[in-house]
């Protein structure tokens, strides 16, 4: 697919993952007929009087040199831009109203790479979702699965062999047909990674467990082409996460031609980071938009509508995603009309943004914010009554109303109500300071001291303002006689590591990747030997871990859901390894001119349904 008129294929201005810069040519002046060259003939252009000549040489010489150099550069540097490059043109909509051909979005950062397989950051996924599609998709506005490149799928009786029937009308952006061979080539590529790739491919490691070098321990056991548009994927054990994991953005289908030409698995190490292969610079998928280019100098990704798309064509011709790391700057850009929308507006700005005519789309909550309790350095926390006392001491209703954005809710368990296995019978632990004091007294922990940590240099959708949340909770705990020792560490500066061992209590949370109870519970407690609740020190730790594995392995969906409901009840009533606090609803904001955006609980919005009216 050639780049659209007026846009270069890519312009990174750097080497590395986004390839070498495509810059204007600066050829040698000798190579170019008619190009200006510095004239070195003595005396030419100089006055005849010796004194004058000296003065000329001394004062005007550099100027002449500079001018000549500039002329040479000007003669040799050529524009690579076609005429009429403007990316912000208005077009007439079907209803006669003027619509913009471009939707410009403000991202919080630049994508780390354009190969989603090696990515784990939201900005890479935001771009990837427009370019790539998966065998299984997500119904817009929900976390539910729906057919995408696979029309249907079903397991055999063992639950280990899954037959996928693929669409037969799909081509990749480079013209390569999408078929069963292409799909299997993708999975084999993901499975067969070198040492660096195995370390970088977070989502494969987290879901399939192992790679080709350790095939026996991998959930993935193979992909067999059984027809032009039919394949059978074999897995090693029954798990609730399969086939939902195939909807993860990391596992989007890439053109096998591009994978091969771009040496997709040729990732290597350099110093304390990686060098990505050329494929990471040339994403070729089947989605509604093609990759047009990334300009590192302006940190702008440009995507063009894919006219051969198998589904409903994208409404907007072009998507431009600009990295604007500062949140207040993103807001000002929206106010000034520089962008049409941005993600994760600060909750304190929501009302103001709406008052200015923008649309704040609140996503359904798909996360949990919890207070982790860790008995490693505090024996008292091994006592269920102490953990319950802390829970009763927290006025979570007030916390949700005063410190969290609209749409937030008090949590009753470690997963939101949109996840299958959520137990709707559970009631929140009531705010009851007297009961808290009573439980502490019963446990002999009236003089309880908690090393209570919160992270700095971070906000998360479930934790928009850690300091304010901390202050509120600290006051609640002190009100029942608990002594709180405050600890802070930077999020990327050791907080996440220290939560395993150093803190008695800490803030953390989780946003679901897929609609799976295991995606929540196993992330928290699945690794019995090492988790941030130190459940290995609790007498229930092993039982909890085994119960999670057992529920995950149930093939029958209804039976599995019931198992998770029971498990949630036991976690909250019998074990209480930590205290789920709340579920928050992150938002995405677009201007009043934008229609068609469907907010996703997974923050997995696709932009192909968006229209921008009125031009920009």
């Amino acid at each position, binding site marked *: 697919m050639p780049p659209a008129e*007026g846009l*270069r294929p890519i*312009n990174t*201005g*750097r*080497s*590395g*993952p*986004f390839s070498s*810069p495509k*810059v*204007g040519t600066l050829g040698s002046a000798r190579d170019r007929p008619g190009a200006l060259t510095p004239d070195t003939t003595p005396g030419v252009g100089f006055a005849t009087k010796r004194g004058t000549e000296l003065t000329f040489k001394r004062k005007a010489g550099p100027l002449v040199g500079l001018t000549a150099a500039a002329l040479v*550069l*000007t003669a040799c*540097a*050529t*524009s*690579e*831009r076609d005429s009429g490059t*403007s*990316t*912000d043109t208005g077009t007439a909509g079907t209803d006669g109203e003027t619509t913009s051909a471009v939707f*410009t979005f403000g991202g919080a950062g630049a994508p780390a*790479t354009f190969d989603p397989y090696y990515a*784990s950051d939201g900005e890479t996924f935001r771009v990837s979702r427009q370019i790539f599609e998966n065998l299984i998709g997500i119904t817009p506005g929900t976390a539910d699965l729906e057919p995408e490149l696979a029309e249907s799928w079903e397991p055999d009786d063992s639950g280990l062999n899954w037959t996928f029937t693929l669409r037969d009308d799909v081509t990749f952006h480079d013209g390569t047909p999408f078929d069963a061979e292409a799909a299997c080539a993708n999975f084999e590529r993901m499975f067969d990674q070198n040492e660096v790739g195995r*370390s*970088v491919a*977070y989502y494969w*490691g*987290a879901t399939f467990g192992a790679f080709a070098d350790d095939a026996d321990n991998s959930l993935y056991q193979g992909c067999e082409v059984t027809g032009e548009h039919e394949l059978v994927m074999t897995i090693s054990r029954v798990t609730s996460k399969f086939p939902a994991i195939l909807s993860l953005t990391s596992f989007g289908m890439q053109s096998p031609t591009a994978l091969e030409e771009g040496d997709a698995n040729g990732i290597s*190490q*350099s*110093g*304390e*980071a*990686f060098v990505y292969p050329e494929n990471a610079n040339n994403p070729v998928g089947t989605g509604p938009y093609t990759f047009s280019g990334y300009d590192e*100098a*302006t*940190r*702008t990704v440009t995507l063009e509508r894919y006219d051969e798309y198998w589904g409903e064509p994208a409404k907007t011709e072009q998507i*431009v995603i600009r*990295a*604007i*790391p*500062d949140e207040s*700057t993103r807001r*000002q*850009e929206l*106010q*000034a*009309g*520089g962008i049409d929308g941005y993600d994760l507006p600060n909750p304190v700005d929501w009302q103001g943004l709406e008052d200015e005519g923008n649309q704040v789309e609140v996503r359904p909550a798909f996360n949990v914010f919890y207070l982790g309790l860790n008995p490693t350095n505090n024996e008292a926390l091994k006592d269920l009554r102490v953990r319950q006392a802390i829970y009763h001491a927290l006025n979570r209703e007030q916390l949700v109303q005063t410190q969290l954005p609209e749409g937030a809710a008090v949590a009753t368990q470690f997963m939101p109500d949109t996840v299958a296995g959520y137990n709707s019978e559970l009631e929140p632990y009531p705010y009851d300071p007297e009961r808290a004091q009573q439980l502490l007294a019963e446990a002999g922990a009236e003089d309880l001291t908690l090393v209570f940590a919160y992270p700095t240099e971070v906000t998360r959708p479930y934790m928009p303002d850690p300091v304010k949340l901390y202050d509120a909770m600290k006051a609640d705990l002190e009100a029942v006689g608990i002594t709180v020792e405050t600890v802070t560490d930077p*999020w*990327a*500066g*050791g907080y996440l*590591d220290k939560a395993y061992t150093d803190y008695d209590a800490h803030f953390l949370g*989780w946003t679901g990747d897929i609609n799976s109870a295991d995606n929540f519970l196993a992330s928290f407690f699945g*690794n019995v030997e*090492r988790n941030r609740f130190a459940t290995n020190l609790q007498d229930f730790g092993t039982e909890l871990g085994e119960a999670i594995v057992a529920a995950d392995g149930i093939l029958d969906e209804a039976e599995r859901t019931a198992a998770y409901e029971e498990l949630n009840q036991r976690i909250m009533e019998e074990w209480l390894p930590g205290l789920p606090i709340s579920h928050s609803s992150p938002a995405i904001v677009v201007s009043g001119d934008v229609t068609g955006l469907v907010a996703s609980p997974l923050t997995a919005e696709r932009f192909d349904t968006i229209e921008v009216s009125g031009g920009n």
Partner: protein
Amino acid sequence: MLRFIVRRMVQLIGVVLVLSLLLFFWLRSLPGGPINALLGDRATPEQQEQLEQLLGLDQPLYVQYLRYMGRALQGEFGSSSSVIPGTDAFDVFLSRFPATIELAFFSVTLAIITAIPLGYFAARRRGRAVDNISIVASLVGIAVPVFFLAFLLKYYFSVKLGWLPVSGRQANLGCTRVTNFFILDGLLTREFDCSVSAVKHLILPSIALASIPFAVVFRITRASVLDVLHEDYVRTAEAKGLTARVIRGRHVLRNAMLPVLTIVGLQVGALLAGAVLTETVFSFPGIGEALALSFSARDYAVLQILILMSAVVFVVVNLVVDILYAVVDPRVRTS
């Protein structure tokens, strides 16, 4: 002069070596590391440990340092983990430095063309309105935080009036890159709209950033001119019957410029090392913003090269100032 320059260059090599050693150990003594940026904050301890082993982060620091120096001597400074992932750290510096140079050039030029004449006139009219107003302006320049000034500028000139862009370095015009100096590139390739866009994007950050050098240069110019005005040679020149223009230009301004030159040199050096706040608030992709990003993500390779190169730039700028000093003041040359 040549010996002087060579001696300073040798000193610079020493500075770079010592600084690289200190930086290496200091950065790695900070809590955290690049693993979070590389794997995301969801990675399990096993995944983190596996990656730490692969990258050699589990090795003793002196081993890591020797490896780093071994690579650096071959011109390989390690890939960026977060600023421009996968790109060699030195290329990150090269891609960001032109932006900072453009911004520093605009800011310092703005500061000089306003502060020096104003400082001169304030000194000549000491105690009068122009003097008092200028002093207040310079105090405001120092006292108002840059990020607040930046916010106000953006609010009025971008959001309210819509005259100038809010952030970034250039509109998405598909401009051709030649040198990565956007104004120059636009002129060279005759994509004049690209140059205009780059200039527009520079105006507000330059004003915000110029507020500090403006205040400093103004006050130094004023004080220096006041000193020189009372020098004997000025009185002698007046007694000789020289014209006021000659006295102002040759005797007052030229002599008064010596301390100003030093200050301007220091300011240029500091601005070229990156204006963290201004670049961050304007999402201006220069050295300062890269410093902030690399620090928060513990992008060791980039952090290290940016700080090292900032030191090199600072030393080189001061060397240039010293040379200019000799040009302006012949006494320095003879000494």
